[in-house]
Structures are given as C-alpha cells and as structure tokens.
C-alpha cells in the first residue's frame, strides 16, 4: 500500500499543475460536468488521486490509460455507481451543471436518470427488446400512455441505429440478439430516459471489429445531443471517436486536452511513452 502511494507521488506533482488549470481545455461554454480534486478509496487503498476534469456537452471525452489506472473507477464516480460498492469512498467534488452530485440533497435516482451508463459487457435484461427500452421510461413515468411509450421505444432504437434490425421482433428476448446488437440495445436503453450525459465503460471491448465500427459510428451521431464520456483501452478508438482525451496513470490524471494534441503533441513524457506503445 505504501509503495503504491510512493509511486504515485512523482506523477502527482505533474498532475497538480495540470489539474489546477482545467480552463485551458474549455473552449466552449460552461462545462456539463466538472470534477475537482477527486480522491477515491477502496477501503485503505487509494484508487484515484486528486483528479480534476471538465466534461463538455459538444465533445466526446475519452479516458485512456493502462489497466488498473483508475479510469473506470473515475467514470463510475460520475453517476455514483460506486455507491454499490460498500467499501468505496469518494472525496472531492463532482458537479453536474453546478449541482454537487455527492451532496446529501442529490437524489441518486434522479442523478442516474440524467447521467446514463453503458457497461463493458452488454447487459440487456432478460426481457423482450421492447421491455428493455421501456424499462427506464416506465420506472421514471416518462410516458403518458401506450402510444407515447411506443414512440419513445421507436425513437430510442432509431437513435441507436437498431430500429431497422429489430422493428419486426420487438417482443423477442433482448438476450437473443448478437453481442453488437445487445450493446446498441443497451445504448438505446440509456437514451430512452433522455439523459444529459452518457458514460461508456469500454463499450466495445467485448465486440468484434464490425460491431465496434457500428458503435463508434453511433457515438459520432450521438455527439452534441449528449455529453459522452468513453473509457477505452484502444488508443485508435480514442483517436477516432473523441475530441478530448484524458490520460490516466496509476490513479492520477496525467494529461487532459484536445485529442489531436494528446496524440500528436503530448506535453507529458508519460503520455508520449504510453501512446507510442512504450508501456501499458
């Protein structure tokens, strides 16, 4: 544990200067989500060390970094999914449109309706395709009647690019779809509650290249309508889909900036080493 802490220290100092000036990256209007000095602990072990970052509405933000660098952990903090882990503890401040999401008056149910999430492995519910999409609108009471719900289901599936493939079999089980279709179903399911932010935790890591290409295309189309944060192992993917990239290493945010800058002209040596494949 102590060794971990020690290895964190050098990069921490690098990080501090960087994190203190997040404004550098915000060329657009007010950011959708802001994080300041976030620490995350699992029991005694520190998984995230003083991360500050802004997420913008008009851009896709990619989190990259080697395995175990804390990028998924940080992502899960952004809609408080870490609450389901009893030993996880979050310090610092994460705001959604200026509201502190860890404040006691914040209803986690409302938060998660506004900040949706797509997981690494497609996880459709063992229900029909229709019921999978209708799940969120139903629990949040978004639809006023059957036609309304039908419309939400159709438009969500259309936005996720799945409507053409499943419109004739909406009553089939969601688990009967292929892996790529399942993942798009999960994205459609997240869209159905009309969130403001969509968090994607390595959404393509369980998919084949063709399905991956479709998801990436979908992310392109969704950009601008939702603030999208995607965690990925695949640097080409980050380069393809994102406008902003954050590089995490050993629980700290090493560098955050425009994707083109990060990949062509990184400021930190660590970032350069990682993207040129020296380690990770």
């Amino acid at each position, binding site marked *: 544990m102590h060794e971990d802490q020690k290895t964190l220290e050098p990069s921490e100092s690098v990080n501090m200067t960087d994190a203190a000036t997040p404004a550098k990256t915000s060329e657009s209007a007010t950011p959708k989500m802001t994080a300041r000095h976030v620490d995350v602990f699992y029991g005694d072990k520190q998984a995230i060390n003083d991360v500050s970052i802004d997420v913008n509405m008009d851009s896709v933000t990619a989190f990259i970094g080697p395995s175990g660098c804390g990028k998924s952990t940080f992502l899960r903090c952004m*809609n408080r*999914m870490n609450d*389901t882990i*009893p030993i996880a503890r979050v310090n610092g401040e994460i705001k959604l449109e200026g509201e502190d999401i860890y404040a006691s008056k914040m209803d986690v*149910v*409302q*938060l*998660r*309706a506004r900040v*949706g*999430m797509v*997981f690494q*492995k497609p*996880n*459709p*519910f*063992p*229900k029909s395709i229709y019921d999978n999409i209708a*799940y*969120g609108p139903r*629990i*949040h009471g978004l639809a006023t009647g059957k036609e309304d719900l039908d419309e939400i289901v159709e438009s969500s599936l259309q936005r996720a690019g799945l409507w053409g493939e499943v419109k004739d079999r909406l009553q089939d089980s969601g688990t009967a779809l292929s892996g790529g279709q399942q993942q798009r179903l*999960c994205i459609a*399911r*997240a869209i159905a*509650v009309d969130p403001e932010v969509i968090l994607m935790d390595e959404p393509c890591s369980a998919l084949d290249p063709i399905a991956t290409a479709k998801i990436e295309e979908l992310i392109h189309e969704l950009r601008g309508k939702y603030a999208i944060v995607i965690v990925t192992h695949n640097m080409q993917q980050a380069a393809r889909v994102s406008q902003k990239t954050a590089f995490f290493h050993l629980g700290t945010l090493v560098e955050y900036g425009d994707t083109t800058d990060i990949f062509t002209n990184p400021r930190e040596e660590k970032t350069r080493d990682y993207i040129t494949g020296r380690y990770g």
Partner: protein
Amino acid sequence: MTSATLLFLVIGLGLMAWFFGRLKAAGLQARDANARSVLHSLPNYHGWYVALWAILPAVLFMTVWSFVSPALITDAALTSPAAAQLPQDGFARAAILSEARAIAYGNQVNAFNPLSQSMVEPYRDAIAHYQMIGAIAALLLVFACGAYAWLKIKPDLRARTKIERVTMLLLLLASLIAIITTVGIFLSLVFETARFFSMVSPIDFLFGTEWNPKAVAGPRGETGFGAIPLFWGTIFIGAIIAMIVAIPLGLMSAVYLTQYAPAKFRSWMKPILEVLAGVPTVVYGYFAALTVAPALRDFAVSIGISNASSESALAAGIVMGIMIIPFVSSMADDSIAAVPSAMRDGSLAMGATQSETIKKVLIPAALPGVVGGVLLAVSRAIGETMIVVMAAGLAANMTANPFASVTTVTAQIVQLLTGDQEFDSPKTLAAFALGLVLFIVTLLLNLIALRVVKKYREAYE
C-alpha cells in the same frame, strides 16, 4: 471357526502377502539398480497387487458361501436319522427346523418343541462340517491366488495400472450402492403394489373417494381403498398451505439477505436459517400439535366456526411451511445471487431504485431458479411425515376447510404399517401402493426441479 475370525485371518494373510509382494519387487529393483529403474511400478504397487489377489477372491468366495451354505446345512441335517420323526406338514416342519437352527447357532437356549431339540445335534454337526469346508476353501484360495500373483511379479508387470483399475472399480461400487438401493426399494414397492392391485382395482384406488381400509370387502363390494382424500390432504397441506406460508416468507427473507442485509448480519443470519433446516421434524410436530393446533382451534371457535377440530390441516400446513422456509430461502438466495451483477448495475444505472431493481430485474431473472427451489420444497413437504401424523389427524376428509382434520399419504402409511400386520391383507399392502405413488410423484418433482435449475444456471454461464 466363525466367519468373522476367518475374515480377520484372510485380511491378516493379505497383509503378509503385501509384505512378500513388496519384498520381491524391492529385490528386483535392487538387483538392477545400476540401469534406469527397471520396475514398471513402485514396489508398493506390487505389494498391493499380491495382497488384493490374496484377499479379494477369498472374500468373494466367503460371500457366495454364506448364501449357499444354509441350504446345504439344512439338506445335511435332514438326512440325519432324527429327521425321520419330523411332521410332514410344511408349516410345522419349517417352524421346528428354524427353532433347531436357532439353538444350533446359539441364538436361542431352550427348545419350545421337543422335536426341535432332537434336530439340534444334526444341525450342529452340519454347521461345523460346512464351516470347516468353507474356511479351508477360503484359506486355500488365499494361498493359491496370493502365490499366483507373487509368481507373476516381474519388472515389466504393470502392477500400478492394475491397482488403479481396482481402485476405480471400488469407487464405482461405492457410488452405485445408493443407486442400487433405490432401485431395490422401488422394485420392492412395485412388487407389493402389484399384489395389492391383484386384490383391489387400481381404478378404485386411484380415483375412489372413500378411504376406509378394511381387510375384507363390504357387502356391496366396496373396499374403502379410494385414495383421493389422501392425495387431496397431501396436496392441501404440503403443496397449498405450506407453500402459501413458505414461498413469500422464504423469498422475502432471501431478498432481504441478498440485497439489504449488512454483510455482518447476513453472515450470522444465513447459518442460523440453515441450522433451522436441521431441526428434527418431530420437534416441529410437537410444536404443531401442542401449540399451533390448539391455538388455531380456539381462534376458529372464537370466529364462530363451531366444528373446528383440534387437529387441523392449517396447523400442520403452517408448521410445515415454517419448516420449509430455510429451504426455499436458501434456494432463492442462491438464485438471486447467481444473477450477474451486470443486470443489477444496468438497472441501477438507469436510475431504478433498489426495490425497483429487485422487483423488475432480479426476481424475474432469478425466477426459474426460485421455481426449481419451490418444486424441491414441495416434494419435501409432501413426503414429510411427522408433522402431519402429529397435527393433521387421521380422518380422511375431502374438505377445503383448513380448520378441519385431514390426512395425508404419509400419515396413512404410518397408520397402516404400525402395530401388528399380516402381509397378505390388502390393508397392509395398500401402504406400498401409497408409497409407490408418493415415490413417483416426488421423483418427478425432483427431476423437473433439477432440470429447471440446471437450465437456469446455463443461461448465465
């Protein structure tokens, strides 16, 4: 020499055979030790090889002999001069012979019938004679087979392979014993049931509505073997009342334990629930008969049901349900815990509350497993005996009134088979027919339940 002494002697000789076998193998190894080990197997395996050869044929022979020799002994005793005085009547003859045999073996001291006393001596002689033959043959087998195996020990003898095959056969035998026993029970049920059905029509038995077993048929040919009231009572108590109690309580406790309980509470509560599953059912029977049943009767009287019985379906059903709770709860617990956490996360990430997630995602996903668990619980409940014997009564009523006394298949089996019985009366044989029905039903339930549970497990692997 008694057979126990003989067995010990054979085993002792077998151990010596092990020693000699090992010695010879070790000798072979020592002599050629300059080359790479020339023995195919380690000396120990050769030892076991010889020992098994020495013991197994002899033990096999002794087993067969113990089945064959009684007939030979009786034949020999009957050729003695004393046998000439025996009565020709088969029944009396058999009684005298069995008495004489008991005295000869030392199981009985004095003869009731003087004729038996005269047969004791011939019996003793015959027993001694055949025991001696058996012992000598067994010992000869030990030496002959042991020597054969000992002579076969050569460097290239594949002793290890052979020992391992014998070990595997032993393991197979062990696993088959339970199955063979079950098949044996089933067959005995089938044969006795066939005898019963030769006296009472299966249609009358399976679809008759009057249960009042008598040894002889009544004036209109009615036998009183209509088992429908028993089947109804069994289903009413075991599958309806007990499940109305056990399913909601078991499921809710499983949901609490898996989803809400703090880890510390769960680590206490789960073992306690599982301990409850080990309480002897007779204890639940006391509870049902002495506490629950009177309380329910008083309650029934107080709400104006005048004919409430002190033994009621409700009392037995409720207590049986309580007995089954840990069972349902632990099956449901396993099924809910087996739902991938990705499902739960997916639902929570949609902004569903914990209870919405449980109701709409976890329980539907765990349902097949829960159903399997409930079916297993039903099959347990309908096979349960003590509680119904003590609390449900013995009156075969066809009633849906939970305060009335009803009876079940198991309670009637107990009733039919306790005390003195004759095994050729339909009244006694009816117990086997009931047992067979129960056996088939619980077997089917278990089969279906295990299939459902298995299919469900595969769905998430």
